[in-house]
């Protein structure tokens, strides 16, 4: 049954923010968990999530590999990217909170998704498998560039060589301010500890003044 309120024609409705929001709900905070294939992102999300991690799909438009350099036109193609979603409620926090966790793959072509996920986020955890350290470079550079607080968490796989966090810091060329910790992504206490480390780091970053990406440099008075 159509609503009694006349609605503007579809063609005239501009993209707008949803109206009549509902008050009183817990505040949602989000954290991004990035890492290479097999680094344990889904495991880490699942360790603290109240729901089984959901695999969610989104379309990404990316520049095709076959660029017509003569015409200067990039062939665009749409690909599907899957990322994990988990959530947990923190009713005992001083303010009722719900925490959303987004687990996202570490490849370059997911950068558009990372922008979406990073907007308004507390920060990011870059989950590292020391056997595939190179897959951590892209997310580390990305979060550095956009000024999102991040921590590096080394997922200590059974049987893998144990590197000292400082060795990983050096290999990833991390700033001294970025915490590097070790964890077992299967252990809720460990994952919660990593999240606590990130929150502490985010507080420090916030009091040190918000890191601004170069693209949004404020205009200076003449």
């Amino acid at each position, binding site marked *: 049954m159509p609503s009694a309120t006349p609605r503007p024609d579809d063609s005239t409705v501009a993209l707008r923010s949803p109206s009549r929001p509902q008050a009183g709900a817990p505040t949602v905070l989000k954290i991004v968990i990035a890492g290479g294939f097999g680094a344990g992102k889904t495991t880490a999300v699942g360790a603290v999530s109240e729901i089984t991690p959901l695999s969610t799909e989104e379309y990404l438009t990316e520049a095709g590999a076959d660029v017509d350099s003569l015409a200067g036109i990039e062939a665009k193609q749409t690909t599907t990217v899957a990322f994990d979603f988990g959530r947990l409620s923190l009713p005992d926090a001083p303010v009722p909170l719900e925490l959303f966790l987004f687990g996202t793959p570490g490849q370059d072509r997911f950068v558009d998704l990372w922008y979406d996920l990073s907007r308004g986020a507390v920060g990011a955890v870059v989950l590292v498998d020391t056997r595939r350290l190179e897959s951590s470079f892209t997310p580390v550079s990305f979060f550095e560039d956009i000024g999102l607080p991040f921590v590096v968490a080394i997922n200590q796989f059974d049987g893998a060589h144990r590197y000292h966090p400082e060795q990983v810091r050096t290999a990833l060329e991390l700033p001294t301010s970025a915490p590097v910790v070790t964890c077992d992504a299967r252990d*809720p206490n460990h994952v919660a500890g990593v*999240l606590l480390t990130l929150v502490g780091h985010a507080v420090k970053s916030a009091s040190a003044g918000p890191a601004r990406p170069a693209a949004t440099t404020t205009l200076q008075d003449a």
Partner: protein
Amino acid sequence: MRTYTLTRGRTKPRHLLGLETVLDAGTGRPGPGQVAECEEILALCREHRRSVTELAGRLRRPVTAVKILVSDLLDADALVVSVTDAYTASDADADERPTTHLLAALSVGLKRKWPDAVGYPKAG
């Protein structure tokens, strides 16, 4: 059903919805001729408020397609957006980071939920 059919050929949602935008069931009813997925979305949101991402994950449909269906349901007042944001998502110039007050609350909430969890560097 192909995604294109699901959204009746539309490729862009009419509402600004984030991946973390949370939806509650509203009082309105969806118009006639809605796809079955709209009823699924409403049933899920009546049970528990859900984020756009969670709805997409549960429906096994791409996020954009779900945003298009959610937009229809918002227009019909069958869904409402929960105020949950720690920042103003619609204001591109707003400081997008959660406040230190909220971060402190998050820290306390995590510690209460996992008393054995240890963050680094340790306090002190």
